Structure formats: C-alpha cells, structure tokens
C-alpha cells in the first residue's frame, strides 16, 4: 500500500494563517449582526457544559468533574 496525499494540507495551513490574520484585524463589532452561527444544539451543549463542568484536583492530578 502506498501512502498518497491527495490534498495540499500545507496550502490549507497557509490559508488558515492568512484568514486568522484577516479575521483578527476585523473589529468584533463588525460581526454583531452576522447570522452565521453553529447550530443551536451545539451552542446549547457548550452552555450546558459550562454549567456542568467542575475542575478538581485528586491526588495532585487535575481531573474533570461533569455534574449533570
């Protein structure tokens, strides 16, 4: 079996770097009325995670505690 790469991932990385610099220079307020958004299911899951997640240290090790 040969290993073949059919996509130019290095170019994708360069694109991502480029778009990062573009977006980082756009003021946040410019997106205030944008309707582009992840699905509400995703947003609600994140909000729920924020409420349920509690970090804990057990035996000097950080562990995650999710309280449902």
């Amino acid at each position: 079996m040969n290993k073949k790469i059919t996509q130019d991932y290095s170019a994708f990385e360069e694109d991502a770097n480029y778009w990062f610099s573009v977006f980082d220079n756009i003021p946040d307020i410019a997106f205030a009325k944008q309707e582009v958004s992840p699905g509400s299911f995703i947003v609600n899951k994140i909000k729920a995670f924020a409420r349920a997640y509690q970090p804990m240290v057990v035996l000097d090790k950080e562990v995650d505690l999710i309280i449902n």
Partner: protein
Amino acid sequence: MEKQLVLSDEQLVKDFVAGDSGSIDILIERHKAKIFSYIVMCVKQQELAEDIFQEAFIRVIRTLKNGRYSDSGKFSSWVMRIAHNLIIDYYRKQKNQSVISNDNYEYDLFNSTQFSDKSVEEQMVTDQVLSEVSMLVNLLPDNQREVVVMRHYRDLSFKEIAEETNVSINTALGRMRYALMNLRRLAEERNISLTMS
C-alpha cells in the same frame, strides 16, 4: 439584556471564573459569529466547523475554570487562536493518515458503480430518508437522542460518548439500543419507510 450590552469581555470572563455561568452565555453569543465564520472560512464544511467550534469553547471553559487564563489581550483573539490551533491539528492529522492506493493492481477496485455518484432520483430519496430520520431522532427522549447524535452525526465511539455524558459504556449502549427500538416504533407508527436503494 442590559448586562449583555454593558459588560466588557474582561468583566464577563472574571464573572464566569467567579462562578456566574450566565457570563459565558453572553460571551458565546457575542463572539460566535466571528469565531464560527473564521472556522468555516478555513475548513469549508459546516459539520467539521461545528466540531471545531465546540472543541474550542470546551477548551476555553476548561482553561477559565482551571484558572489558567491570563488576561493578555482580546478574548475573541484568544478563542480564535485556540480554534486556529485545532484547525492546524486537524490538517496535520489528515496529512498523516494513510490513503489506500491500488496502483500496483491490475483490477481497479474503485472503478465500480458502487462508488459512482448517485442519480438525481437516488439522491432525492436519500435526502428524504435522512430528513425523516432527523425528524424522528428529534422525537426521542433527550438522553437517547444525545447518544444517537454523538454516535451517528458526530461519529464518536461509545467510549467517548460515555466519557462526554458521564455514564458507563453499558449505559450508553443501552440508550442506543432503546433509541433504535424507539426509532423503529416511531417510523412504523408514522408509516415511514426508511429504505434506501
């Protein structure tokens, strides 16, 4: 609403770290369009962009709650940097995955109608069935719907589902079993045929 308009990102971050969960809601609502637009611009796939968006904010929440956030710039830039790193990680992971090639074989394994594009009619049937399945999934109880979405829409393993929902693997498997039984029942009740050609 008033809070949403008045408080700065820095103040909302401090409030969230201090235990006010509502503050992160405002931060997410305030910045979701910018962060998500950036991710979509890079990866150009809605589902993948949603996965990266979710993972980025999970990391944000973990970092904030663990007290590791150092207030050294714009909040949106920090979240975008996390999303950016996830995008780069995704590209590098894809790059390192092996791709099967049949160059060394006379018979072309992939030259089969099985792998050809669907006809318009087949595509319409598929779209219809997927739409009906999605509608039925929405009728499931929350814990069953969650497992189905994680397994079939987000492609998580049962181990990952168990970890994310904080239940045992057996419970996750049980929920999936009941979800499938309920989906069959719901489809029968509504006379919906879920057969694809």
